[in-house]
């Protein structure tokens, strides 16, 4: 009975249908739009506003106006310009951490799932230890002890995030390696690493990339949190740092605290939405 329902759904081929499903979802379009806008800000913003970043005006702590849409800070700098410059930090940290965590996690997870039982157990114990350690606590301690710096923050976040990717990749590899077509590939005389690389990994990668999207969101939140508590990189503009310095003028100048927070929220929401939609589209269960 369900097969007849499914039959009509499989009429269109996989990738086409998925793309169409994504494009027909307003939420997916929203999150895609936000991400593109951010990328533009991060890429072009500094070229336009780079010189204005430190430009101070006499209008200190001025509220939103026609001239300074989002107001100015205690040195008279435009909040909007700083936010555009700060987008680069958030995006860089988010993407760099997510990409490194995904690549490392996927490699480790694939080898763990495809290798022997002993190696697998060893890797899984390590990821478990990472998972029980509270990520914000560890990140805060490491950054506090090592001293701040963008590269270190990326490294720390990636270090804390790879285990989730590794566990997911391993689960997928374990599931796929038991499928008939992998046995069929072995019977063709393929080498084990060839089977892993050419038959298993390409089919395991979709949920891992979806998870990567969610890690971008987590990483941006984590970076902002560190910066908010004064553990950010001191020489780079970032949204979290704006919130941190806005705290001092919390009662006089609400715009210093509200707008960067909105920016963080919308960005993280966009990546979470994207991950959510991707998961829905790639989940085979959602097809019927």
């Amino acid at each position: 009975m369900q097969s007849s329902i499914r039959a009509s759904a499989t009429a269109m081929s996989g990738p086409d249908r998925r793309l169409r499903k994504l494009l027909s979802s307003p939420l997916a379009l929203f999150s895609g739009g936000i991400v593109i806008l951010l990328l533009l800000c991060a890429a072009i913003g500094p070229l336009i506003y780079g010189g204005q970043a430190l430009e101070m005006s006499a209008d200190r702590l001025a509220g939103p106006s026609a001239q300074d849409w989002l107001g100015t800070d205690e040195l008279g700098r435009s909040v909007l310009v700083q936010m555009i410059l700060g987008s680069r930090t958030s995006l860089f940290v988010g993407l760099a951490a997510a990409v490194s965590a995904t690549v490392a996690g996927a490699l480790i997870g694939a080898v763990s799932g495809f290798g022997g039982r002993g190696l697998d157990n060893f890797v899984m114990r390590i990821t478990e230890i990472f998972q029980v350690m509270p990520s914000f606590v560890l990140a805060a301690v490491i950054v506090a002890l090592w001293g701040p710096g963008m590269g270190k923050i990326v490294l720390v976040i990636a270090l804390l995030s790879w285990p989730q990717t590794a566990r997911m990749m391993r689960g997928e590899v374990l599931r796929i390696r038991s499928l008939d077509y992998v046995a069929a590939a072995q019977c063709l005389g393929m080498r084990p690493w060839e089977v892993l690389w050419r038959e298993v990994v390409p089919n395991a990668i979709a949920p891992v990339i979806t998870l990567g999207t969610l890690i971008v969101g987590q990483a941006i939140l984590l970076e902002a949190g560190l910066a908010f508590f004064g553990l950010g990189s001191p020489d780079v503009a970032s949204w979290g740092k704006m919130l941190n310095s806005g705290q001092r003028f919390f009662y006089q100048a609400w715009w210093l605290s509200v707008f960067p927070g909105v920016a963080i929220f919308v960005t993280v929401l966009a990546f979470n939405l994207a991950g959510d939609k991707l998961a829905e589209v790639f989940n085979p269960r959602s097809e019927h």
Partner: protein
Amino acid sequence: MTRFILSRLGYAIPVVLAVLVTNFLLTRLVPGDPVTALIGDFPAPPDYVARLRAEFGLDESVWTQLGLYLRNLAQGELGYSFFNRQPVIDLIAERTVNTLILMVPVLVLSSVLGVLLGMLAAVQKVRWIDVTITALSLGGKSIPIFWSGQVLILLLAVHFKLLPAQGMHSLRGVEPGWPAFVDLVEHWLMPGLIATAFNMAIVARVARVSFKEAMLGDYVTTASATGLPRRTILFGHVLPNALIPVVTVIGHNLTNLLTGTIMVEAVFGWPGIGELFMSSIASRDYPVLQGIFLAVALVTVLANLLTDILYAVIDPRVRDSYVRA
């Protein structure tokens, strides 16, 4: 069941050890004198420094030091915080109680409400309710909690002057008994509700999906075919089956009992473990930090144990797999 709990505990010990060793090595990686790592940046009396040198064998190799550190831990010797002028163990005990006052209602509320919301989103047929709950839970996950706390303070405490902005008790004394309780609740409301909203968002998302899946279960068809009333099907069959994935999330929230509210505590000045952690980082109070690590590791292990037991209670298949293993 006893055997099951023992086997789970046996599994947990290596995890605690690993966490402790990692943290020990981490603090040893800091440039500078290990004495600093043991007493913090605060100037300490010289005879205490000498005693520490002997006690931890600071001239010995790192591994001997690690052994001594673990031995001292086992004896409940966590050191002294000069910054707070208190033995670390007392400090942590006091702050843990405060965090529990904040977090226990949060966990209960967020679990119950999260499950109910997820169920509502999955079960009823009005589409906009489902969409709204999904959007709220996704939004809840994306809000920087330190920021939303500030905005709330700005609105409710500063602008409307409805609730106290900071701390756990009013600074002006309050009579003990009922007035003190009301005072505590007033202070709890903002941090408590923010933390509840965040945890609830996570629970509701998982609950919604697992209820949807449980409703498609074949046993639901059987129950319908035998003429069971809808309520019996929903609460007798769908609910227990849908709870299994939810337990994982609630367990995860439980794991974050002490650390999940660092940001909330710091923003609202709630004198709990999280607030202690942030201030100890700022003051480089290593003995306290190491004490917090130990507390966190223990809570994590207990939370995992509790989750596993909960699993076994709900799902007989899990019970059997442990008996066999």
